[in-house]
């Protein structure tokens, strides 16, 4: 529902005063709460970069502060997640058949997917969960979804530390190609942040989206090749062409497979679609820039409903 200015039944207050606008202009007063231009908005957001990182770190620290094991959970949570997926998909459902190095394959998929899904989910709560802050202090609202995305990026670093241990245990030792994971995850982080900004705006207007997102994300996860190989499936002939293209160019699948390509020996370039880096960069640019502009366009309405 959109908010409309309902005219009052009776209006005993004063009428608009043409002299007041002139008075404001004469003394150089600016309209309060007006949306700044996009460059100015970007500049202000940059000015609040320390708040963004401090807020993200504070949330990450506070997250497990009441648990006995404290921040150990930051590593334990992704590890336990990986164990559960291994048990269900590796042992019970046996999707591992035909996939070399299944454990590294699965764990990389789970961690990279979790980065996107938790950032998107966090985005839906970035404004609705901080209405008090939005209504009390003045700052570019994009700082909140961006801080939530930064928090997930920090969490990813813990997951990647855990992943390194798992990979080494599975005989995948560090090699130069691991560095390719940096641009892949960097592009993914940009993509995620853009999506978080979009979700923050949508959820601030329609809070019900937060209830719907888990289902959307679960569907997205199952088509993203987290626990099965997209490459193998689309090379088979049963998949219609259009579906194969959609599966291959799904941004989540691209980022997952790029990271696998960087980290796992047996995951070779022939399992990737052509122009994969260009595709990953396009998605990041589209979501990052588009999400930022989309969020900015409703800046003055946040915290109102």
């Amino acid at each position, binding site marked *: 529902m959109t908010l409309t*200015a*309902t005219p009052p039944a009776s209006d005993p*207050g004063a009428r608009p005063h043409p002299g007041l606008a002139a008075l*404001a202009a004469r003394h150089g007063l600016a309209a309060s*709460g007006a949306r700044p231009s996009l460059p100015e908005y970007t500049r202000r957001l940059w000015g609040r970069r320390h708040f963004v990182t401090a807020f993200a770190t*504070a949330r990450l620290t506070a997250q497990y502060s009441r648990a006995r094991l404290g921040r150990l959970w930051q590593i334990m949570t992704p590890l336990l997640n990986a164990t559960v997926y291994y048990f269900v998909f590796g042992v019970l459902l046996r999707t591992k058949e035909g996939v070399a190095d299944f454990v590294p394959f699965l764990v990389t998929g789970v961690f990279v997917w979790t980065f996107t899904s938790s950032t998107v989910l966090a985005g839906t709560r970035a404004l609705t969960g901080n209405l008090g802050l939005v209504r009390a*202090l003045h700052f570019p609202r994009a700082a909140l979804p961006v801080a939530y995305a930064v928090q997930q990026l920090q969490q990813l670093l813990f997951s990647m530390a855990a992943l390194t241990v798992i990979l080494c245990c599975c005989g995948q030792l560090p090699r130069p190609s691991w560095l390719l994971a940096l641009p892949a995850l960097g592009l993914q982080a940009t993509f995620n942040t853009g999506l978080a900004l979009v979700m923050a705006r949508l959820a601030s207007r329609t*809070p019900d989206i937060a209830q719907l997102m888990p289902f959307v994300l679960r569907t997205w996860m199952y088509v993203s090749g987290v626990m099965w190989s997209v490459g193998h499936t689309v090379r088979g002939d049963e998949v219609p062409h259009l579906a194969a293209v959609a599966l291959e160019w799904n941004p989540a699948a691209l980022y997952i497979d790029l990271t696998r390509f960087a980290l796992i020996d047996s995951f070779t370039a022939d399992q990737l679609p052509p122009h994969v880096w260009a595709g990953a960069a396009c998605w990041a640019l589209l979501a990052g820039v588009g999400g930022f502009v989309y969020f900015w366009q409703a800046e003055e309405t946040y915290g109102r409903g």
Partner: protein
Amino acid sequence: MAEEQDARTPTVIADDVHITYRVHSGRTARAVHAVKGVTFVAHQGEAIGLIGSNGSGKSTLLKAVAGLLPPARGRIYTRGQPSLLGVNAALMNDLTGERNVVLGGLAMGMTRRQIRERYQRIVDFSGIDDKGDFSTLPMRTYSSGMAARLRFSIAAAKSHDVLMIDEALATGDAAFQRRSKARIAELRATAGTVFLVSHHHRTVTETCDRALWLEAGVLRMDGPAADVVAAYEADAKAKK
């Protein structure tokens, strides 16, 4: 009106401001018309009290002046960025007092350097370290008075062009109330214009030279604080 006051510098101009916001309850959403056509001009050096019964739109109007709630109709013009004295929402109970000082300062738009410079003063002013080293403990371990003192100290650490103070800020024991009253006076001296929302009419007549009386979102009276408070009290008595 504008013509007579040309000699003074305006800091806040409200021009026929209407504010509506949505209230959700289940599937129905209702628009509440909280402020209905308020017009006033505030000047440099003025301290303006806002009075009116509960729900008359005082806090809503302040939030609109701060640019936090956009007016549905009308315009608000301001010099610089008006700030609400309040930082509670940015603080996290699971963090130490130390880290909350930094987080709260950054949330108010202070630089890391400004926070470093003022850090000791903020902690000393709050008095949380008077009985042990509480600044290194999570805020959830504080007594309610201690937490309130720290919140006020952080909020009052920054100086502002246009400052808005909602009442019930000065909490804590008598000694702290004296200190915070003095700090509010200091903030008033450095700020261009101060708005004060209060139910204590004595506070309004003591600290403000002008008062706005809001009733059901409409500006009932605008004038010298003593006159407006007297009229408001007479009206309240007549209703009883």
